């Protein structure tokens, strides 16, 4: 029994890692652009298919494929920023619809390029670590955990210590005041879109061998990500990480001991409870709507 619990904890840490990367990217985009990016799940999908194309298709090394995936999806983020998010900055619902349009385009491209069937990718490594008696962590999952820790730390340092990071936070707090200080809004949104999309891409690329990509895999991930960013308080990076960890643990434990549908239900009810008690999420400011 204790092995099962320990194993579930390890699985929860893995789930928390990829969920927090996705959620942080979404929050970053929301903070600077004021738009909920509905296509975020499809950016994750694009990252996964980069690995399908480069690693499975062209036999490039796995990590080369991952890095290319991150940059490629980051560039997709720039395309989105340039094509419509910039024009729709003060129009959140318009941005939502445009990102839904982009989501449909990305899905169609994936269907045209790779077909609707699941793509199976051979794992890049078969090695695993035995943490305790019978508690296993495959290297494939370890990569995701390490990547989450490294990237989130890097992001934290970037936002707190560098001038760009300060400027970005200023934009998230008050766009007009930031612009008055001579911060180039377009440049900041470009950086935020690149980082936010790139994070989704790297998660998709790293988890590709674990999840068998399909063109519609973004759907479930975006739903989870929405729950997480709302529980954390929209626009709160720390909140997103904390909520991702909470949600991952609850969801993984309930899935292991009951089943997936109950886990979804428990997750949603918990989220509603949080919102009923504190209608702006765990870390959200009280007066902001």
């Amino acid at each position, binding site marked *: 029994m204790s092995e099962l619990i320990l194993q579930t904890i390890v699985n929860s840490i893995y789930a928390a890692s990829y969920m927090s990367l996705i959620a942080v990217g979404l929050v970053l985009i929301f903070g600077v652009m004021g738009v*909920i990016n*509905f296509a975020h799940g499809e950016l994750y999908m694009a990252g996964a298919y980069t690995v399908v194309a480069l690693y499975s298709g062209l036999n490039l090394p796995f990590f080369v494929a991952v890095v290319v995936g991150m940059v490629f999806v980051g560039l997709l983020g720039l395309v989105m920023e340039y*094509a*419509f998010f910039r*024009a*729709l900055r003060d*129009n*959140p*619902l*318009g*941005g*939502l*619809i*445009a990102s*839904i*349009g*982009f*989501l*449909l*385009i990305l*899905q*169609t*491209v994936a*269907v*045209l390029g790779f077909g609707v069937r699941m793509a199976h990718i051979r794992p890049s490594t078969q090695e695993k670590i035995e943490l305790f008696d019978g508690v296993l962590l495959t290297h494939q999952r370890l990569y995701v955990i390490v990547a989450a820790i490294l990237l989130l730390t890097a992001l934290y340092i970037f936002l707190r210590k560098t001038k760009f990071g300060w400027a970005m936070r200023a934009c998230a707090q008050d766009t007009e005041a930031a612009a008055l200080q001579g911060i180039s809004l377009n440049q900041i949104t470009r950086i935020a879109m690149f980082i936010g999309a790139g994070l989704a891409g790297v998660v998709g690329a790293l988890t590709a061998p674990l999840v068998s990509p399909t063109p519609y895999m973004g*759907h479930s991930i975006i*739903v989870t990500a*929405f*729950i997480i960013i*709302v529980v954390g308080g*929209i626009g709160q990076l720390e909140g997103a990480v904390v909520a991702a960890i909470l949600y991952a643990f609850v969801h993984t434990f309930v899935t292991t001991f009951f089943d997936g*549908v*109950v886990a*979804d*239900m428990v997750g*949603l*009810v918990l*989220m*509603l409870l949080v*919102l*009923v008690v504190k*209608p*702006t*999420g765990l870390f*959200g400011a009280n007066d902001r*709507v």
Partner: protein
Amino acid sequence: MSDSKTTITVWIFALTLLAGLLVLPQLLSYSQREIAVFLIINVLLVVSYRLMTLTGEWSLGHVVIMGVGAYASALFSKRLGVPVPLSMFLGASTAGLTAVVLSFPLFRMKGFYFLIGSFAAGEVIRLIWKYFTFPFGGAKGLNLIPSFPDIGWISFFDPVNYYYLCLIVVSVSLFILYRVERSRFGLTFHALHWQDKLAESVGVNTFRYRMLAFTLASFFAGLSGALYAHYIGTVNPTRFDVEEMVYVLIWAIVGGTATFYGPIVGVVALTIVNDVLLRALGFDTIRPMIYGAVLIASVLFMPDGLESIFPKLKRLMMGRKTEPATKSEAGEIP
């Protein structure tokens, strides 16, 4: 707005439209008649959604509420043997009642929190349908739902007859919804959208009015669900998932929600583009891509929705400046 000339124009327009709608099914192929039935049902759905958005809150649970109406009406008629017309009304009432209950947790939230909160509440309902095989039929849902009883020699199995039935029900519902918006309640809904603190300070119970809007909108969404269920004969949880909701959101925003006709224009235009034009051209795989491009183009080039063309057209035709569009009248995107 109230001068008699405009009223006459509106009446002439409405009567022409009605006549057009009456002869429409005779001009269509069989599959297009089916699309027409669903279109009429969707018109009711999206117009009821707009009533909800008048108070300034955007919900992602509206299609699930439609599903509540569909499921309830199907269960009343199938398991309890209630006659179908009555069960439709009961189904719609169940949807309204669900909204009353959901108001208490949901209206503590605002903006994006409400958006996601309503989505979560809807998902919980959907998962309940999925999880409990009795009475909801689990993931496969309910089938063999009794169809609308024949009146004399008129069989409602025929899409044309069902189209006329829906047309009557939906026209009456739209009339009610229109009157509600023009009434004191409707004005209060607008007030809540623009100045909820001010409204509260002059003694408007904002919670109660939000609940009223939500309940009314849900009643008519439930009615559209009931119309759907007894036509197609089967309902399942997937039919009411967030993807369908996204379509309703798209119709409302692309059409525009400032006017009563905006969402109707949106649903009609996008259904024609997606189900008639693109299908006729035969691009099956790349249809979503074209649809996506149409969405992006429409929000970029018509940020106020398709409805904003009409005042412009009118100004062009009149050849003089009339007062700026109806924007000030109603909901703008929050």
